[in-house]
């Protein structure tokens, strides 16, 4: 299919809400082919001089001879391609992004600027330490912030994201238990936990057992006590939990876990709710990962990269992964080898997500101790405001106050013919990104709304007004509105079943032509 052939492509059959155009474009929303369909062989958006003819001759028969199949585009086409694609995305910059558990807060541009300073961005990870003292100092300064904010004595900086942090923490726990000579086999995880928790436990060779929640949406302490025994290695508990609630019995839980000889992994993905308000170390946890890409505002980037440092107790610290940064009389050193120590090893190619460290530290310095506490306050205030404002038209799953996110379920949609999914898709037409849906699993048709602290009251009022309106229309029997949504987005609902049944995971020459 060539670009211009689009002209003849008419969508027939399916009823569309949008007027037809000959070009396929719709005003400022441009249809955009795949880069492969924009190819002209021999064209390039780079002007590298042709290398000497014999440049690759030393490869002999190992030289690549057949065409690779990469498309040739000029720079203007490449820029346009990605600009057009970008315009099909929702973003926090363009609107409220109330994805519960994701902490879609404003990403300050100062952080981007700092991360690009050549003194950070253009450092090779294997430079002699004397030439990277500022970088090591930066890692250490961030580590100090993390330890101070969490009240924990140690931190492992290299995990690449939250899930890697979980692995780091659980491996430290397992190494520690084995070091105690007390290998165990079970990890307790609440049903409400994020999928990475059980997946990580499994990667650590543990069997996952779930612990029930009580009617208040918290861990059932009594039930937990029953589960605890000498085969339980650890509990993985998210706090505030994925229902957006603080685990009221957390100190007792920690005590019970420790009494049973197990350790307490805390999932800190929701740290935003309590930063500066509560030090998890004061609650008795043993380790916790922190998503710098949530609480500390490094951008999500459409799926990553992230960074998941793990704070640890003194007991777990010796098992932490390498490398680590230490300061001695001569400056900062990077410890890459564990001289006879107990480190469980290396988790990442190099030292960690430095580009996220510079951003997160910039963010912390900007807010300061006072500002970070205000972050927690405002994020919790906003969620409670939403909970209070919508409780008459939607169905909150638990009593408030909540922490930084408000959880609703689909009881208010009962008998309307509208599902949580339908409801969420209608938000798209209204200019909002949907909330997190069907998570956590402990309530039916969950809708988890996390406004974050960087939304203004006006913006939140607009969300509340829109959700009220939608709830009322659902109850008024206007199910079609929901079933047809979204109508105003670059695409209407996509056929996910077909995608999974016969996966097309890459472009292949000729395939599109054949399909038409």
């Amino acid at each position: 299919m060539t670009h211009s052939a689009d002209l003849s492509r008419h969508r027939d059959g399916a009823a569309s809400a949008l007027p037809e155009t000959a070009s396929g474009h719709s005003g400022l929303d441009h249809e955009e082919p795949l880069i492969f369909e924009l190819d002209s062989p021999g064209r390039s958006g780079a002007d590298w001089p042709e290398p000497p003819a014999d440049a690759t001759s030393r490869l002999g028969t190992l030289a690549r001879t057949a065409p690779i199949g990469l498309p040739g585009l000029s720079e203007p086409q490449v820029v346009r391609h990605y600009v057009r694609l970008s315009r099909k995305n929702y973003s926090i910059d363009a609107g409220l992004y109330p994805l519960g558990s994701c902490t879609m807060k404003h990403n300050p541009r100062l952080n981007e600027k700092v991360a690009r300073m050549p003194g950070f961005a253009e450092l090779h990870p294997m430079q002699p330490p004397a030439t990277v003292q500022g970088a090591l100092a930066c890692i250490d300064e961030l580590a100090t912030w993390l330890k101070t904010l969490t009240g924990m004595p140690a931190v492992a900086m290299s995990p690449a994201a939250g899930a890697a942090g979980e692995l780091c923490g659980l491996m430290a726990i397992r190494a520690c238990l084995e070091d105690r000579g007390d290998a165990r086999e079970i990890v307790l995880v609440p049903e409400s936990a994020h999928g990475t928790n059980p997946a990580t436990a499994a990667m650590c060779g543990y069997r996952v057992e779930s612990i029930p929640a009580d009617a208040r949406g918290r861990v059932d302490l009594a039930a937990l006590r029953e589960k605890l025994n000498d085969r339980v290695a650890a509990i993985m508990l998210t706090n505030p939990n994925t229902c957006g609630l603080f685990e009221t019995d957390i100190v007792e839980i920690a005590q019970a876990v420790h009494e049973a000889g197990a350790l307490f992994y805390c999932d800190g993905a929701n740290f935003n709710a309590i930063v500066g308000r509560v030090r998890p170390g004061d609650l008795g946890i043993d380790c916790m990962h922190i998503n710098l890409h949530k609480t500390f505002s490094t951008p999500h980037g459409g799926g990553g990269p992230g960074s998941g440092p793990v704070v640890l107790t003194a007991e777990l610290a010796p098992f932490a992964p390498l490398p680590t940064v230490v300061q001695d009389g001569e400056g900062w050193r990077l410890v890459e080898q564990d001289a006879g120590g107990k480190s469980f090893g290396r988790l990442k190619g190099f030292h960690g997500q430095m580009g996220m460290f510079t951003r997160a530290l910039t963010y912390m310095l900007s807010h300061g101790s006072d500002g970070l506490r205000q972050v927690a306050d405002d994020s919790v205030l906003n969620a409670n405001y939403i909970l209070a404002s919508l409780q008459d038209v939607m169905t909150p799953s638990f009593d408030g106050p909540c922490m930084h996110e408000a959880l609703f379920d689909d009881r208010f949609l009962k008998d309307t013919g509208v599902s949580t999914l339908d409801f969420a898709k209608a938000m798209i037409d209204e200019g909002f990104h949907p909330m997190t849906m069907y998570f956590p699993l402990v309530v039916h048709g969950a809708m988890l709304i996390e406004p974050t602290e960087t939304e203004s009251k006006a913006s939140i009022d607009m969300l509340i007004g829109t959700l009220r309106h939608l709830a009322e229309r659902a109850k008024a029997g206007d199910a079609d509105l929901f079933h047809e949504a979204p109508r105003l987005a670059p695409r209407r609902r996509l056929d996910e079943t077909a995608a999974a049944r016969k996966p097309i995971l890459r472009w292949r020459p000729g395939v599109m032509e054949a399909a038409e």
Partner: protein
Amino acid sequence: MRYLPHTEADRAAMLRTIGAATVDELFADVPASARLSAPLDDLPPHASELAVERHMAALARQNLSAADAPCFLGAGAYRHHIPAAVDHLIQRSEFLTSYTPYQPEVSQGTLQYLFEFQTQVALLTGMEVANASLYDGASACAEAVLMAARVTRRHRAVLAGNLHPHYRDVVRTMTRYSGHMQVDSAAPVLGDDLDGLAERVDDTTACVVVQNPDAFGNLRDLRPLAQAVQAKGALLVVVVTEILSLGAAMPPGDMGADIVVCEGQSLGNPLGFGGPYLGLFASREKFVRNMPGRLAGETVDSDGRRGYVLTLSTREQHIRREKATSNICTNSGLCSLAFTIHLSLLGERGLRDLAGLNMARAAATADALVGAGCELLTPVYFNEFAVRLKKPASKVVDALADFGVLAGVPATRLWPDAAELDDVMLVAATETVSDDDIAALATALKEVQG
């Protein structure tokens, strides 16, 4: 605080709606003993952009930027020219500040580029399918071993001696407690680490992991190895730490690889002191339901228009939980965008020219080093090779840094226990290396080595 929109009046109004007198009340669920009554005073208060920027710039100034020095470091991270359009485009708000594309109707931008990215990775590696990225090359390598174990239902991984030791270590770490994996790794050799490798494969072996070019830069023909390994029912995992090499060298897919993992940093992503980087992961199509990580796939919308979605999610943690193929969730999204934009700019011709240029720069560097009295240890290399110095490499490298030259990576930094590598230095030269840089290296080296 510039990032916090509420005024005190807003807060008061919201508290009224909530029916709470103070924000403190909202934290009533926190055990009293753990409530902090005021901001932590061992941390500084908020600061202006100017003040923060000054602080961070002061830290940055304490580093020797590879942009300000002749730089010949490689060993798994390469300094390449990044076209200005790349950084501009990845900073588009709609790419930078969006989440994982779970709502495809308003995420087609991300989904389509992921689909294109997967295709590019498959083409580069010569494989059938590729995923939407993992954290980095090293963790991708570990995931490949775990996947090989799932596919073969075997529990032993054989690692070639010249696999980057960080990769080896990450494989060891990530398999330590997972699935009773047994990792058999060998010591590095300056010669051919494929020698005797196939013999280490037995009927419990899930895979053999080999890096190409290896950690000393040697490019080898893996076809015989692939046949031998596969004949014993194991998979061949090929690691590529310099993705650009595939612009000049036969792809692992053509050599018979079952799984290919690469570090994708070289395209579009700055050195950044080691991260964030980009794990590429490609395999045979028949293994796809065992793959770790996200996959974008093509489908249609309810108006029949082509569109893209995340698919085969039943492999993933958010659906399958403890039965997932991996625990990965957040991956290297924006790094994959930088990669795919850079590669789109290059295209077939640009990639080949750039790869050829790297080979030429490396040859010029090797010539200069040989001229300066070094022994070249790598017979067939792409843009990186090993040389033997007249003095311990770590001393030489430190001394050259004092001359403002980032000369290479001492082999003992990678293999601290390999005394026989004491005088070996790894040297990489990309298109960013100028003739002046090479002259500066040679001159300084002569000075230091005498």
